[in-house]
C-alpha cells in the first residue's frame, strides 16, 4: 500500500567548472593589469663648468638659436615662425648642415609645456644636437 521510496542520489556541489572560473579570473587580471611604463625624451646635460673646462666657440653657421617666449611664441634666428612650420624649417636646416646645434632658449616665465612641444618638434625633425638654456 505504501508508495515505494525511490533511492535518491547523494547531493553534491558541481566542481567541474571551478578551473574555468579561476582561469577566467586569471585572464581578466592579466589583461587588465597595466604596468606603469615610463616614456620620455632623453637628454644629456652639459657638464658643470670649471676652471679646467675648455671652451669651444661655435661657428655662427653651425648654430641655430630658437627662442620661446612666455606666450609660447617661437623665434628662430631672430625671425618669428609659426609652430606648425617649425618642424619643416628645422628639417631643412638639419639636411643642409648635419653638425647644426640648436640652442633652445626658453623664457623663465614660460610654461614647461611650451618648451616640451618645441623640443618634441626638434627631435621629430631629426635634430640631434640640442642645448637647453634660459634667460
Amino acid at each position: 500500500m505504501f508508495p515505494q521510496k525511490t533511492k535518491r542520489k547523494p547531493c553534491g556541489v558541481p566542481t567541474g567548472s571551478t578551473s574555468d572560473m579561476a582561469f577566467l579570473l586569471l585572464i581578466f587580471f592579466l589583461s587588465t593589469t597595466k604596468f606603469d611604463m615610463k616614456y620620455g625624451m632623453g637628454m644629456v646635460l652639459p657638464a658643470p663648468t670649471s676652471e679646467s673646462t675648455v671652451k669651444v666657440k661655435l661657428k655662427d653657421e653651425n648654430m641655430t638659436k630658437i627662442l620661446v617666449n612666455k606666450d609660447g611664441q617661437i623665434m628662430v634666428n631672430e625671425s618669428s615662425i609659426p609652430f606648425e612650420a617649425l618642424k619643416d624649417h628645422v628639417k631643412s636646416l638639419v639636411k643642409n648642415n648635419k653638425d647644426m646645434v640648436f640652442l633652445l632658449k626658453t623664457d623663465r616665465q614660460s610654461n614647461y609645456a611650451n618648451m616640451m612641444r618645441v623640443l618634441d618638434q626638434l627631435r621629430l625633425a631629426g635634430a640631434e644636437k640640442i642645448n637647453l638654456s634660459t634667460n
Partner: protein
Amino acid sequence: MAKINKSKRPIPGVPDGSTSDIAFLLLIFFIVSTVFVKEKIIKVKMPKAESIDKIPRNHAVTIYVTQAGQISIDDYALQIPDVSTVMTKKLNIDYNVISCFRTDENTNYGLMADIMNQLRNANCLRVSFEAKRKI
C-alpha cells in the same frame, strides 16, 4: 596449459583534478605581486609628445615638479638647493642614474632650469622629460 588471464587495464588519462588549484595559485600570485602606484598628494598633468622613448626603470629616479613649484624625489619633498645633495647620493649608488622629470605642463620653465642646474652641479647629467604619448 595455463592461460594467463589478461587483467583489464583502466583507460589512462591526464589527471585534471588539480587544474583549478594551479589556476587559483597563479591568480593569487598575480593579485599579491601586483603593486599599484600611489600618487597621494602630488598630482601632475604631464605634457604630450610624439618623439618619446622608453626609459629603463632600473636607473630611473623620478623627480616630481608640480605647478605650485613643489619638488619631490622618490616621495621626499625637498627644496631646490637640496636637489644637488640628494642626487649626488643617488649617483653614488647608481652611476648611470637617469633623472626623470614628471613635471606639470603649467610649471614655470625657470624652476625647471634651476633644478637642471642643481643636477649639473651634482654631475647627474642624464635626464629625461617624461611625457604622455600624443594620440
